[in-house]
């Protein structure tokens, strides 16, 4: 039984990239706690360590030192396959460039996380259709990404992020490739999901986007600064 209210708890997280003769510190002594149901935005200029933080939070990268509890589980020292398992279960990703498989339909893209979770074909198909319908894409179920607008593609990506019912949605510049109108649309969807109880961590360099979150943290030279 998980009894924690913290979906993310990071203590002294440091990430050093070892180069040929000198190491680069990308993250330095990060202490970060995100409570369930929060809507947090992390901002920072390029090179501030934003991407590294997002990779560490998203279990795509391992910290050099420090401890990281994801939904009560210590995930700081996991191997590649265990990381994959935790990612699949706990985190829904929304990327800047959507990252949909170009030759697969909307439904096929949405069911991907469920395939790796071992969900039965019938169950995952029903879930995918349900999610896409909720996001207003019921007429686009069998369309390929190139037959949809950017906003529609990002909504397919959001449906995919929700497929395994994770508590945490990690969105990396989700509006970066969208026009203002579609961007607003995606932000409204994220806000709605937050209202329904999902924890949202949004990484962005745009202040007006960050301003829509309930809490903003600023990253500078690999260190967190509260604004």
């Amino acid at each position, binding site marked *: 039984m998980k009894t924690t209210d913290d979906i993310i708890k990071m203590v002294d997280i440091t990430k050093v990239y070892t180069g040929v003769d000198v190491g680069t510190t990308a993250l330095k002594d990060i202490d970060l706690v995100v409570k369930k149901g929060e809507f947090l935005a992390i901002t920072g200029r390029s090179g501030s360590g934003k991407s590294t933080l997002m990779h560490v939070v998203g279990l795509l990268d391992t910290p050099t030192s420090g401890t990281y509890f994801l939904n009560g589980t210590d995930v700081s020292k996991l191997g590649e396959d265990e990381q994959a398992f935790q990612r699949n279960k706990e985190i829904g990703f929304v990327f800047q460039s959507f*990252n949909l498989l170009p030759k697969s339909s909307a439904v096929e893209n949405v069911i991907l996380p469920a395939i790796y979770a071992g969900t039965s074909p019938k169950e995952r198909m029903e879930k995918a259709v349900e999610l896409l319908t909720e996001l207003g894409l019921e007429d686009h179920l069998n369309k390929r990404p190139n037959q949809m607008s950017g906003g529609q593609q990002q909504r397919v990506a959001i449906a995919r992020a929700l497929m395994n019912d994770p508590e945490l949605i990690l969105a990396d510049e989700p509006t970066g490739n969208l026009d203002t109108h579609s961007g607003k649309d995606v932000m409204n969807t994220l806000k709605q999901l937050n209202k329904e109880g999902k924890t949202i961590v949004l990484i962005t360099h745009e202040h007006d986007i960050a301003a829509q979150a309930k809490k903003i943290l600023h990253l500078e030279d690999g260190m967190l600064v509260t604004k």
Partner: protein
Amino acid sequence: MNIQELLTLSLKAIWGNKLRSFLTTLGITIGVFAIIVLVSIGSGLQTYITNEISSLGSNVIFVMPGSSGGLGAILSNKLTIKNSQDMQRRLVSTGKVTPEIRQVETFKYKNVKDKGAFVLGVSSQYPEVVQVLKVTQGHFFTAGQESSGANVAVIGQTVKNKFFSNSNPLGKRIFLGTKLYTIVGVYGKLGSVAGIDEDNAAFISAEAAGSQYGITTVSRIDVAANTPELLPLVIKQINQTLSKTLTSDDYSIETADSLLTTISSITNALSLALGGIAGISLLVGGIGVANIMLVSVTERTKEIGLRKALGAKRNDILKQFLFEAVMLSVTGGVVGIALGMLVSVVIAILLVSTVTLWSVVLAFGFSVAVGIIFGMAPAIRASKLSPIDALRYE
């Protein structure tokens, strides 16, 4: 991922690059096709020769010109009609003897001509040595006709049908080349051997053939011991007879058994060599699969990163790409087997060829193995990609 999901996924990827997949599978198809066809021809040949030799019986001996396995027979053939006659006299109570001379000849009766027939010069004991030959009409020429130098012939079914259709050929005189021969018998159908019609021929005495063509040598002498138990004695008598005029380098003695051993070792080596050559083309096909899978992994780096980010484990990616390589290779293999069997059946009509189950199983096994072996390195490479690097890849 279960097999069905892997199958759908790999078929989709293969179908998504039709031309490329087709060209890659073609490499495997050609390799497998070559294995099936060449092995079929090899084993067809072996079956045919084995049957021919066994049909002669275990009491048969062949006396060949030249030492065993040497080139003497081609360079200078010293085995003569006279040797055959001497042997016949020596073996009078132990066996039957016939020489064999073969010449392509033009047959002519009235105004009908056939340029592709051939004349076989043998002794009157031929039907007792080569027992598959059955005279169905009239009789084989006799020892008396042989020694008196009578120009008599025994013709095959093709000759009979061509020149005499429904009329009785016995007693008719036919030109075999420049000389006229009286037909005394017709022999039953022998069929075709490697495309040569054994029924488009006429048997005459070796002496008649020798004088007509101005030759004294024979291509071989066949001997049948009266009983298999007499075989050692017969071989001894042959050696005694021939050693009077020939050295041991001038001739060799083969029994049906020794011939079978020699020939099956030759055809086995042949099958192996043919299979080996085909194996090389399959190897080249496999390299093609490896190459295209490496390209595919590079092209789909981003897809691999995404799948990993969404929860795919190393093993999931490995299986996906390995399965795709095996599917490519097996598709090529199945098409190759089908084409190979089809062509082997067509070859069997013209020449000899037997599709063997083991070559089909082997070829299928090979194509699976090629897929696994050559797909492994690209699949491992794909499975080791880090999700961040792969996602960033453009």
